């Protein structure tokens, strides 16, 4: 069966960006205000700059009035499912990074990325922090 083996999964890119953003923010617990459509906008704009080839894993459709990447949408859901990120009840407005994400990044993900990719991810994380409203620890 000629199956496609993606080198790096979108879930891993998103985990890495959020973990590196947390480290950059120097907070104990990164929580940021975001609806999914806002995340879509942020990442599609990052991709438009063409500075970060690693983001090509998120293909944004131009079907409708706004760019939309199903891969990004699904990644957010899957990271919640795997316990790497969570959402604060009852409004679900804030996404927060769980401690497991740090561990997963250090123990599993870090080895997957080469130096150039890690550099891109670090830059994306710094840019990401400028684009979201970060909340303090509850």
């Amino acid at each position, binding site marked *: 069966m000629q199956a*496609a083996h993606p080198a790096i999964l979108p879930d891993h890119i998103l985990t890495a960006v959020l973990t590196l953003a947390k480290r950059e923010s120097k907070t104990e617990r990164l929580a940021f205000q975001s609806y999914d459509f806002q995340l879509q906008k942020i990442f599609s704009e990052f991709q438009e700059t063409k500075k970060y080839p690693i983001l090509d894993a998120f293909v944004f459709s131009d079907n409708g009035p706004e760019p939309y990447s199903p891969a990004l949408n699904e990644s957010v859901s*899957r990271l919640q499912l795997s316990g790497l990120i969570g959402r604060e009840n009852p409004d679900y407005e804030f996404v927060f990074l769980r401690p497991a994400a740090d561990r997963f990044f250090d123990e599993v993900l870090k080895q997957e990325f080469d130096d150039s990719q890690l550099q891109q991810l670090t830059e994306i994380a710094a840019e990401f922090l400028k684009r979201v409203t970060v909340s303090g620890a509850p």
Partner: protein
Amino acid sequence: MTNTSPEHKHQRLRDRVNTFVDWLFEGYKGVVPKGPKVFNDALLGNLFFAPQEVAVIDSPVLQRLRRIKQTGLVHYVYPSATHSRFEHSLGAAALSERCFAAVQERASVEGTGPLGDADRTKGDLAHLRMAALLHDVGHGLCSHASEQIYKLLSDLQDFKRDKAYATNAPGEILSYLIVTSPAFTNWFKKYVVEGCRADLNLDTISKLILGKHNRKDKTFLANIISSAYDCDKLDYIARDSYYCGLALTVDLPRFYSMIATADYKDHKVLVLRNYVPLEQILFSKMTLFGSVYHHQKVKCLDSMLRSMIGHIVDNPGQASFPPRGGSQGSFADAVDYLYPTDDEFFGQANGFGDTYIKGMLTRFRNRDLFVRCVEISRRTVKNWDSGLRQKLIDLTELPMKLADSIPALPPMTGSALIQTSRNGPIQHVEEYFPVKQWTDAYAHNKWRSYVFAPREIAESVRDAAIDVVQEYSKLEIDPITSNLNCHLS
């Protein structure tokens, strides 16, 4: 040197689809219908189809869908769920018109209409209905059960990397390729456009199947075909729950009264005037996923099918489905899944000449199904919050056998827009109520994965599977709780 450019790969799949359509039309004598037809649908009542629609309905492209069950292997669990993609397609066409009529009526009373041409033989409505009728012609063996397998094949992944197809399910891409194939285009021109004197543009129809329209002021038509509340969902939620005997409600008349069109970022889009109908759709969809599509026995059946397909793929010389058209029956590419219909695949008494397949077909025939032998869930995994379950979830994106029974999350289609009054602001529905977050939370709590095995070797498979899962993901499964949940001793 082999040409590996995206265009070349796209063309290769297009050619394979065209060969399939050619094969489908082999020996078919096209007839121009004498007039319209009424179909009596158990769910929606009498559905009226115009002659050009009847020509398409009577063609092998649509008739093939009679032999593909809408809910794949679900009928082994819910015995009355034997409805087919064919009747769903008729239903989707009818509901697309009801959505169109609803937004037309709304535009008329609000003084913003008319939105489009409501003629059945030309114009917007005719194209919309035809797109709805043809939207599922790319479904293959056992519907989504095989889509989960072939979606990971590289020929389709190449399409998914193209932003023109990024939001489309594999079946939709295949539907698009069938409808745009030269074989179908030629037939359509002769029997529909000329034969029925229908002024229909196949390019518009095929784009609508992908949820697109060339004109931005017609985006709402694409939304009726593909969006968070499209005619496909309206039909399948009602139809699947009806045939499974589940009392789910989507108040369609209320829904129609709550949809409208609005101008948003240069597009005329479909919007909701109230989010309650969307809540109903989402809750019903989640219930269907929990009770039907992700029922543990349905996942078991999907795994058994995947096991058979995997065996055929791994042993092409020994266990192929009878070759036909351009297919060697090896299930090595996405188009191979279009050739056999459910009845043909499961009716192969000789098991394609292979002992393993023969044994599995006998199991299906007698409903002698595998059983659960390991449960992977928050109830059975000791280090559930370690984040390591991401390694298991990664498998849903990789073509590996361990992924057989790991359920993917229910797909959400885009983001819905809401405008509570005609001149009010247009917002994402998430700003009103956390639609995706609720469904994610629900799916999160319902999520569990299983390893299935033949009953007679369940205990030894269990022991080996626990070791494999632990070795691969470092997740520690509590065997006592797992046994209890799987009803193993």
